[in-house]
């Protein structure tokens, strides 16, 4: 039976009525209308569904709703602040780091989590951290360039 649960999504408290064993991805998309996170594989192997949970990247397609109670969930919709894109969103645009862009949400969320953890990642750091995210269009090295340029932008802005 559905339980009522309080969730913290993109800085807001929201109440959902949903089974605790439903996937976080399903609840985000179908119940909360946050469709930026995508289904790509259902086994946590493509990264299209990546969200941050307490700042760390997580595969929402294999995360049960019950596991995120009282934890801070950030989706792609939560990265933009006051109409201003997250530096990595801007960097993706500047680098043209997408084609069909279906992987883009997951890539940006994963990349943003990386930058939180490591503000100056090397190419190798990026490759290792991002290896679980698939871009079938093959724009990987543009994504690497976008993450590097966002890292530089953040550093310059904080100077």
């Amino acid at each position, binding site marked *: 039976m559905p339980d009522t649960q309080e969730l913290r999504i993109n800085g807001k408290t929201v109440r959902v009525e949903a*089974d605790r064993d*439903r*996937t976080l991805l*399903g609840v985000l*998309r*179908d119940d909360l*209308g*946050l*469709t*930026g*996170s*995508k*289904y*790509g*594989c*259902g*086994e946590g*192997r*493509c990264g*299209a569904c990546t969200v941050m949970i307490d700042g760390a990247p997580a595969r929402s397609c294999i995360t049960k709703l019950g596991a995120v109670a009282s934890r801070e969930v950030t*989706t*792609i*919709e939560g*990265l*933009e602040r006051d109409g201003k*894109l997250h530096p990595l*969103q*801007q960097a*993706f*645009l500047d680098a*043209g780091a*997408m*084609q*069909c*862009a*279906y*992987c*883009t*949400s997951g890539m*940006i969320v994963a990349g943003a989590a990386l930058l939180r953890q490591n503000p100056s990642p090397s190419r190798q750091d*990026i*490759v*290792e951290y*991002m*290896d*679980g*995210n*698939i*871009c*079938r*269009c*093959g*724009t*990987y*090295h*543009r*994504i*690497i360039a976008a993450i590097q340029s966002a890292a530089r932008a953040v550093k310059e802005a904080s100077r």
Partner: protein
Amino acid sequence: MNLPTESPDLAEPTPEIEFERYELREEPAYHFALDRRDFLKGLGGGLLVLYLLDRESPDAEAQESGRRRRGGFNRAPVPQDVGAWLHIGEDGKISVFTGKAEVGQNIRTSLTQAVAEELRVPMSAVTMVMADTRLTPFDMGTFGSRTTPDMSRRLHRAAAAARETLIDIAAETWKADRKDLAAKDGAVVQTTTGDRLAYGKLTGGRKLTRTVTDDTPVTPAERWTISGHDAAKVDGRSFVTGAHPYSCDIRRPGMWYGKVLRPPTYHASLVSVDSSAAQAMPDVKVVRDGDFVGVVAPSEQLAARALAAIRAEWKPGPAISDRDLFRDLKNPGGQRPPARGGRGGFGGPNGNAGSIADGLAAADVHSEGTYTIAYIAHAPLEPRAAVAEWANGELTVWTGTQRPFGVRGELMDAFKVPEARVRVIVPDTGSGYGGKHTGEAAVEAARLAREASRPVKLVWTREEEFTWAYFRPAGVIEIRAGVKKDGSITAWEFHNHNSGGSGVQCPYRAANQAVAFHPSQSPLRQGSYRALASTANHFARESHIDDLARAIGMDPLEFRLKNLKDERMRDVLTAAARAFGWGRKPESDHGIGIAVGTEKGGFVATCAEVAVDRSSGRVHVVRAVSAFDCGAVVNPDHLKNQVEGALVMGLGGALYEAIAFDNGKIQNPKFSKYRVPRFRDVPEIEVVLIDRKDVAPAGAGETPIVAIAPAVGNAIRNATGVRLRSMPMVPRGLKV
């Protein structure tokens, strides 16, 4: 064959559908009438420009229904009448209507550039309405790299005609000399006085219609200021914010979720179904219609539970296995179509000639080889998805497909509804690569929605996408060749079994030639894939050419240049070799390789450097350089993006992608079991674009994929002395 260069002045070529687009044959052809004048009325005042495909048809406005000639294989359905239209409203709003679909190749951007270029407006002033069967003119589909050579040229012409018409009107209004008028920033400007009249104002409440054809003059590429330059992806912001609604993101009021029961194995047939447990679940609806069994429920989770509760008995089909694949493809049972050559068939510039026996007798060295090509999956990251809604007997489906009108046809056929009552809308889609030419999810969702009397969303699981979509055809390629010590090729015999005829012809001079494609019977469902069989045929040919060069001790680049006839192929080869630094000796356990090819009017050469780890067997491509010529470049950055993406995607089929199947079941229908290129696989990439302003642009999404596999194979051969003749080459690493 597509070797001759395309002149910008030539009429639009008649589209021809390649043999190996098997999925297109699965669909019946239709001939329905449609009156779309209602939509044209709905446009309101302003200037409407219709691009006519058929100059013989003066009454195109009533006929843009997509009439298609019925016919066999080679008589492809030809869309007629209106190929595109463009409207400039009284408010100055510019709307362009095309049946092409955006699937990541960034044609929404390149087509917007074409219109903005000719209308002398910023790109932001143009709205592109795409791939909606109710709003846009018929289009056969977004495949074959035809958008740039066909649709872009049409839109250049429609927009140029609109601009000239507006200048005519201004000249009349002002009683001015036409030569003192110019179009600029959405207005006609009188250069002598500085007066300006906005496009919207010029039409002054009238409804004007102009028709244009292919001979309308357009801005030459040398004078382009918007086309030919970088432009950011249109709507880019909606993609980086997650706001863009793909098909799977569409939500409709009262919408429920559907799931479809799949057979446990290929070719299994349904014997009996017990769905009582599912039917007993509250709010669950079970649909049984012949072999179709599906469920609808208020949530996806409940739909999945209901589906799992269905007990079905199946009669298994033949226990097909990949172990027998290549033997069976070469020795098929009764064949339907006769063998024929590639595009253009025999008798083209490289058709059969002379005698293979004579050629081999004249050779100093013979070389034979058999190459095998595995089935691979497109695995678009957005799986097949559709939302279907019936209202007042009309069906609307949102779905990701490269053929909205083809899918409309499938729906009309499945539900016996007329064309006017079916609408297919294609939101910009999560890629296709040739894999989304069909409407499975659309038909299934529509069947479920009709039963449920509410909108239904159906998203295929990754396993379904890997199992029930069609694959790139597997194949066996046999080559026999002879060469003289001076580097002249005396014999070239090439047989492709099943994988397809695209790119089968030999671009090298060879006095005696026999080239053939032999259709077969495929155990798995197969169909189009980016560049079709060209990738397989280039892999085999360019690997074999390399071996011929080595056999006579000639540098592979020199050998190719000696035998290549086409200047554009020679040019890309030279450009790639120069940028790569061909000739430098690689470090130990590294190797370098080169390959060249042509497809869809484009020319590509790729150089690759690989590193082979002898202890782990890992083969890593450390560097790849491609030179590409597809005529006048429309958007350099997006073109580079396509070339880079094709290189990366091509690495998958070259090195590790293969569909495994046994006992009628796909064994690796998941990303955890089916290895696609990932971040760690990406080489350093350099792309050299050859911008030929004098040649009309060809499409670019496909061709750059054809040379990477042989370049890597040749590099592995260079590093290890081992010639790998199967695609994928190293699914389990390389033991040397």
